């Protein structure tokens, strides 16, 4: 076969969908960053007129993690990858997922797509530069300013029915509030502990709500180590992890809940790019620069009236006020 023929045969003629690629040798294993990456991919697809996306994930055992996560190495990177997979399925535009461990194949697939002129997030040149903007909202804000809408994330593919079953069985007739209380102190990697939330204040808040609104159920999301044992005995709190469910089910429940409340962390990114009403608490002031808002702003440029940011450290009283105002607004609206 001549060289030209060889090149021509190499071009992946899949020009009907956008490509998103992740190389974990420079992209962190983090829920919020993965969801922001996915949202960027959806925006790129919409910008280029596609209604489908394809993902190419590269986890190379020889370079399993970025310099920001030195605790992730060849012996444990698969645990982090396993934990992240469901988040990557949160795009309703998903057509295919490729998980590749060999760099040659990954680069060849990228080259093939590039030759075919496929639109991608990030740009193909991110790969040689080993750089990606995985946290800023710049592209989303620009897209929203131009088009007046943002393509939203949704329950991870394949988990929708399980979540419906769970709600019908455990939370039937309830006003469902999904909650995430950031507790990084309980993790192996103690990153940005100042963003953690006081769990005792949240517990007091749940107890108050149990007295006042028995029809409200709180679904606690997050790692098994993150909740305290006494929370388990509060009747209005459900913890899906104690029913054998993982991140996929938790995300599906978040997308199906009536309200999300929680710290500015991975799960809040899912709420941010959804239609679910939310209150993101304890918003990190220094993060404002990356999301292109000012400290104290009540919402992102693309958020709705029922989706707000709160900049204070949580107390039971403050959570109470926030919830009551939002609950009244949603109930009044419905």
């Amino acid at each position: 076969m001549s060289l030209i023929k060889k090149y021509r045969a190499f071009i992946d003629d899949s020009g009907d969908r956008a490509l998103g690629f992740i190389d974990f040798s420079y992209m962190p294993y983090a829920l919020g960053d993965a969801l922001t990456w996915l949202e960027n991919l959806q925006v790129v697809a919409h910008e280029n007129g596609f209604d489908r996306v394809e993902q190419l994930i590269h986890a190379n055992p020889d370079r399993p993690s970025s310099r920001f996560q030195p605790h992730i190495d060849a012996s444990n990177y698969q645990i982090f990858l396993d934990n992240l997979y469901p988040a990557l399925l949160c795009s309703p535009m998903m057509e295919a997922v490729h998980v590749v461990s060999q760099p040659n194949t990954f680069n060849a697939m990228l080259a093939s797509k590039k030759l075919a002129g496929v639109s991608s997030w990030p740009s193909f040149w991110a790969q040689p530069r080993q750089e990606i903007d995985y946290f800023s909202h710049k592209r989303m804000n620009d897209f929203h300013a131009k088009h007046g809408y943002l393509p939203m994330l949704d329950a991870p593919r394949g988990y929708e029915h399980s979540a419906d079953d769970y709600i019908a069985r455990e939370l039937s007739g309830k006003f469902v509030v999904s909650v995430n209380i950031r507790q990084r102190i309980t993790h192996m990697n103690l990153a940005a502990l100042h963003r953690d939330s006081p769990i005792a204040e949240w517990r007091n808040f749940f107890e108050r709500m149990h007295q006042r609104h028995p029809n409200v159920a709180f679904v606690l999301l997050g790692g098994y180590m993150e909740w305290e044992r006494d929370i388990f005995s509060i009747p209005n709190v459900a913890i899906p992890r104690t029913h054998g469910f993982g991140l996929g089910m938790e995300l599906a429940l978040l997308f199906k809940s009536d309200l999300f409340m929680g710290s500015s962390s991975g799960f809040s990114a899912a709420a941010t790019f959804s239609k679910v009403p939310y209150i993101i608490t304890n918003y990190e002031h220094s993060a404002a620069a990356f999301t292109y808002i000012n400290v104290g702003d009540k919402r992102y440029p693309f958020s709705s009236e029922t989706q707000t940011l709160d900049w204070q450290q949580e107390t039971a009283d403050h959570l109470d006020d926030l919830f009551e105002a939002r609950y009244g607004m949603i109930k009044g609206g419905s």
Partner: protein
Amino acid sequence: MGLRSKISGFKRAALSVGRLRPLVKVYAQLRRVEHLIVQAILRTFPLQLLRIVGITIKYIWYIQAGRGNDRRPLVSVVHLDALKRPLRDSLIIMHRSVVQAVAEKRPWVWMVFVFGEGETRILPGDLLSASQRLDMVSQVHIFWSKKSAIDYVQVFAHEEDRAGIIEKIENKDVSDIVTGSDLTAFSVSACGSDSYRFPHQLVVKGRDFLKLFNPGSVIAVVSLPPFSSEGLASYSEKHKWLEMIAGAAQGIPRLQLVVSGFASPGNDDLHDLARGAAFTSNLGFSLSEEMVLAKHADFYIGPMDHFAMIAIDAGKPCMIIGEEGSVSAVDGDFGSHVRTFPDIGLEDPESFSRELRSFLSDAQKAGFIPVARVDWIEKVNGNA
């Protein structure tokens, strides 16, 4: 030199290091500045251009080398909606693909999973997670449309295999993968390839968990049959199975049950049904962690599911119960450590109890129970 002068020598040295601290700080600052300067130079246009040219040459090299598939991997196609038990059957198919790849001297296995139009009883996250457990599986592709699967194969599969793979994608009846329940040529370890491998931290966690029960106890991983005669088993039917297994286990000294893959809405009931048993789903164990337990516990009781696959492959004594036990035409295919009991039903708990004791006794005679447990087995036999 006396001790006193030695100590004062250390003190002096420590003090002089302390005096150097500001210098160390200055040095650290200089290193930072140096790093910034190097980064700035690296980001200049000519160097960026050089890098881009370099990577372009690299890409051309990949193309020239034949898309990285010049060593001709084995590509397996799995139609998920054609499988009765998608997770277990996918594992079986991966097993068989690895065995075949070794026999054909292929370097890797690429798995192509196709979701059909109908509902599929598998979570894609579980599929991705389970498919990473065999080292020879170097690529996993999940497609929600046949067209995108064919697009991929047309470019990346080896030329000689391409037409055959596309035919399997287009027509599930042609695929050799729809017969997942055929368990012949089963053992990965026996074919010389690496068996299921789990991240080290998970193995440590699993083994610690088993030790926490009681270092001297004998631990059985229990999974519950998913089907009844009328289709999917209900919670109440699974409760009955659990009650029967726990009842039989109660008469056996120092036997602890670890129930995997099952969480019931009425969690309190479970603990009444099987006192002292651990329910890993309630303990926040992931699928991979539960698989580690199946690999490292002393034996397995349950249907022929994905946990059974792991236990069988690890050479653990396995008591395969329920109609799923009949999937293998010949018990010998699994090895002598596995016995199938397709006819054991909920109607006869006494018979189940007898079979359990007999199974354990046979497993000990065949050498599958470690020497340290011999006295325990004698007690089991004594109580029988």
